[in-house]
């Protein structure tokens, strides 16, 4: 079963608007959504991201990489968090994404998470092989934390 990442993207205006909303309400709506994902057995992970003011952007447009502190000025959409779900197919990913309790100014970008079959043509590549080992190491670290 394929895995998908649901990535929340909001405009700065939507973020500002949500600051005025009742936070308990937001938590409850998101909680109910997360619960439905759990009850359906499709949720395999997810995290929220902190205020963009704590973040920064690195721009690779020029050789001299430009680092800009959040909330990024001209960047119009901000990533707020993500879910990872394991579902039967793309249709089901779409259906779950539709159910997410988000408002105007916010989008969900949904992307399939690659697995090793996506790199089958590069199976001999040293780093592709190493990466499998890294996954093991990362899982072990996650296990210990």
């Amino acid at each position, binding site marked *: *079963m394929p895995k998908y990442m649901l990535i929340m993207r909001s405009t700065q205006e939507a973020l500002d608007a949500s600051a005025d909303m009742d936070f308990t309400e937001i938590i409850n709506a998101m909680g109910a959504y997360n619960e*439905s994902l759990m*009850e359906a057995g499709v949720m*395999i*992970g997810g995290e929220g991201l902190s205020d963009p003011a704590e973040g920064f952007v690195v721009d690779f447009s020029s050789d001299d990489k430009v680092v800009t502190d959040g909330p990024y000025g001209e960047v119009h959409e901000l990533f707020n968090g993500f879910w990872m779900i394991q579902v039967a197919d793309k249709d089901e990913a779409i259906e779950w994404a539709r159910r997410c309790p988000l408002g105007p100014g916010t989008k969900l970008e949904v992307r399939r998470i690659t*697995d090793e079959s996506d790199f089958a043509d590069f199976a001999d590549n040293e780093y592709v092989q190493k990466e*499998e080992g890294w996954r*093991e190491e990362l*899982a072990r670290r996650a296990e210990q934390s």
Partner: protein
Amino acid sequence: MPRGPAAHDETARRLATIWRIEGARIVASLAAMTSDVALAEDVAQEACLEALQAWSREGVPQNPGAWLTTVAKRRAIDSWRRRDALGDRYASLAAELRESDDDDIETIGDEVVRLLFVACHPVLPIDAQCALALKLVDGLSSEQIARLFLVPVATMQQRIVRAKRALLAAAVPFDVPDPHEWRERVAGVLRVIYLIFTEGYVASSGERWMHRELAYEAVRLGRRLAVMLPREPEVHGLLALMELQSSRFAARVAADGSPVLLDDQDRRRWDHAAIARGRSALRRVDALGRGRGAYALQAAIAEQHAIASSVDTTDWSSIVVLYEVLGRVAPSPIVELNRAVAVSMAEGPATALRIVDSLHRAGALATSHLLPSVRAELLARLGRNEEAREEFNRALATVANDAQRSVPLRKARSLARSERVDGGRW
């Protein structure tokens, strides 16, 4: 929204997916209302047919689950009307329907559990229990289930119709089991889920050695059950076992489709996120503090393999101990045979052969390829090649699955060339 046949197909696809997500809750709420799972399923299907027409014309409503539930409730009332059963039940139902017409359906996890208990009711044959669990709780169509179990669609449809009739005939209540039968019934549900998993993990016949999709349906059911019955240790034990076993999917089959034994698997290809989920489920078992049952013990064995970087660094002594405990909790010749394999790794083939020989003398596993396979392996490691070859041939004669056949075949051939055969565990 486009109209015409394209809209119809598009709607049908969305409906199938919506059904997959909400079907169980819809049927469960209808069954709670009608106390009749078969009727609930029938009227829900009628509602789906209506939805297909209406949604193709008007688009999918904001809350498709509530739409389906409301229409299905009306059909249930119609059905009672037709049966001339206009009694108190109808009157109260009609009243309730008027009140709740526009309400959203609520999260009713406990009703879905009831549905699962009914689907896995011991009055049904086990294959019907598996089919009904996938149909009622997982929202799969009879066609999908037939494909997953590799049986003709008509056979599966008949199986499901018979099962629904049997539930009706036995007047199985739409309820959770009574306390005195709770443990046994929970065990029954777990058995069904694990059977679905193993059917997918090692397809019991034919050329398809592994049928991942079906196994994943079982994992999904297991995850759902862990949310619905969080205080049952074996629910988490089974989930742990399935997550850990499914972590090896990618590594279990070679490029040519032949099986790769545990020893020869590229452990980097194991799904380490699945391993982490499995181990965390196992920790939930321990956190409940009521000991490890048979599933949790098997999961703990799988965990030992999962955390070892190679066969040589595997903690075989711990695995031997776990098999000993498992043998006390759930004694079976298969457990004993697996213990023998672990003993052969921890202490050497001679001790292990004594265990296998006593199984052999007891006439255990007479129709399985496993016992002669393991015995052959041990004999080969002891240098008794002639006897080993005989055992490999015996194993070959009993393998049901074409792909699995390739393993003893390879071994018998390599033995015939007098090459050393290394511990290939099943």
